[in-house]
């Protein structure tokens, strides 16, 4: 097994841990050296740092990385990471290294940690979470490792509440804006990147501050999307669910699909009536049809005022 392979997790694949799993948390077993460790709520609490909220960067970069990453004490050593990935990862881990314990981990650990980011933010729920045993023989691992449904919503809500409680300054950096967009939407970097017609890596680099100069159009679009998401957050809607799953348009498109088409005004219009009965836009306006003229009665007449004597 080469370093960087997706590892086997849990006892289902025969790599039995030496002692029974704890009653809570998640056990991670790496294929490359057979070691395992348990990510316990107490450990998770050290991962509560905001940068871990959306670890899709780590997840994806680790997947394509050739080597493993090792944590030593409060530092992180990057091994056999391509130059392209190095700066992104280094920037990323600078923000979270202080909370990490001294344990050697491979790609799988990153996979798991990345998925536990949102879960970890709700410590209260995490301490009551049942032990999770995961059989993940292939790249679907990440999806399998997603936080349990009953934890996802509070985590999202917590993220949204945090984001709306502290609005960004008008001169916020691109990294701040992109990070807030990711936190509010809970969408993957890939989905967000598609909205801006950029590569996933580009959005990652905006978010991590590696790239600070998007083109003018995308800089403006970042602000627009943030405005939309903050508006939705104020309406206490599950933003991700609404964006990806609600289909209230005549064409059956989701808000995300509308955004892909560049129709943010349509999405904002629909967002404004969330929680209320859907109000359809007058389709005649969109297609440029003249409404049929209304016929009024004889009470709709203005008679000219008689001229005064001196005007005659």
């Amino acid at each position, binding site marked *: 097994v080469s370093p960087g392979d997706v590892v086997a997790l849990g006892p289902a694949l025969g790599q039995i841990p030496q002692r029974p799993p704890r009653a809570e948390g998640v056990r991670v077993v790496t294929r490359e050296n057979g070691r395992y460790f348990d990510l316990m709520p107490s450990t998770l609490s050290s991962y509560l740092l905001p940068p871990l909220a959306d670890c899709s960067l780590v997840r994806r970069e680790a997947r394509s990385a050739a080597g493993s990453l090792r944590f030593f004490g409060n530092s992180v050593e990057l091994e056999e990471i391509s130059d392209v990935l190095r700066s992104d990862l280094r920037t990323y881990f600078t923000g979270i290294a202080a909370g990490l314990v001294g344990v050697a981990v491979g790609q799988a650990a990153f996979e798991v940690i990345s998925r536990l980011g949102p879960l970890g933010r709700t410590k209260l729920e995490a301490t009551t979470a049942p032990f999770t045993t995961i059989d993940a023989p292939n790249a679907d691992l990440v999806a399998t490792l997603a936080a349990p449904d009953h934890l996802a919503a509070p985590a999202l809500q917590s993220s949204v509440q945090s984001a709306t409680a502290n609005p960004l300054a008008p001169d916020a950096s691109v990294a701040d804006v992109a990070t807030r967009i990711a936190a509010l939407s809970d969408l993957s970097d890939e989905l967000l990147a598609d909205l801006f017609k*950029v590569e996933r890596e580009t959005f990652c680099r905006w978010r991590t501050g590696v*790239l600070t*100069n*998007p083109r003018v159009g995308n800089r*403006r679009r970042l602000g627009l999307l943030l*405005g939309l998401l903050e508006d939705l957050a104020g309406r206490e809607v599950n933003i991700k669910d609404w964006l990806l799953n609600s289909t209230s348009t005549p064409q059956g498109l989701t808000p995300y699909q509308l955004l*892909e*088409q*560049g129709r943010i*005004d349509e999405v904002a219009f629909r967002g404004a009536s969330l929680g209320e009965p859907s109000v359809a836009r007058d389709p005649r306006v969109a297609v440029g049809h003249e409404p049929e003229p209304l016929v009024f009665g004889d009470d709709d007449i203005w008679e000219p005022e008689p001229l005064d004597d001196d005007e005659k």
Partner: protein
Amino acid sequence: MPYPTTPYLHHSDQPHAGPHRPLSQGDVFVDIPLVGAAYRDPKHGTWRAPKPRTGQDSLGLFVTHPCASRSQTTHKLAPCISVAPVVKCPSNWGPPWDGYYNFVPLPSLRDGQDYVAKLAEVCPVSSAALAGKRIACLSQEGLEALFHRLAMNSLRFPETPMHYETEAAKVTNEINLWERWTTRCGTGEGFQDWLDEPFEGQAREDANGSVIEGSREPSGQPRRAVLVWNYEELCEEFDAALS
């Protein structure tokens, strides 16, 4: 929402500000005929209309939304437009313009003096009377503030939903392009047809943020539908079309 200090895109003491810009919501005019509410003649007990206000002190703010003020097919102005009379700002009101939602602040409108539009006295004005009489038009930010004032005055709706921003951007971007078209071509004819043509798409960028040549893919949307999200790309198409 904080009221903008300078809510104008074009602004001049004398008409016609932004000479090639189509008339639209938020424009301020001078020397237009304004009519007031009828009053009961104390002598005869009959209802009489006050003398229409005209001249250099007769100012008004274009209130009607573009969709309601223009034909959806010919895009010409409707014969009659709702206009709020504009007067000098009361001496006991000013920034940050809290309350008094029946007034729209127009800071430093003329000679550095603040004015207000009186939403309680909105009156019909023949669109023919507006031609060549504009002294100011609102920026996108100013238009958003106007939306908020209108909603507060009419509905006491306190929020400033994202819809205001996208709607203001949509109106502003369309009028911006229309103005540029008229400036370049000498007429606005043809612009709306161009706006209804398919959008050619937004170019993709590589991992370094560089544009990938030839990566534009039409989204199947008319240009009109992407006025807010893809304004920069529309400007490029616009320049290419008129070059």
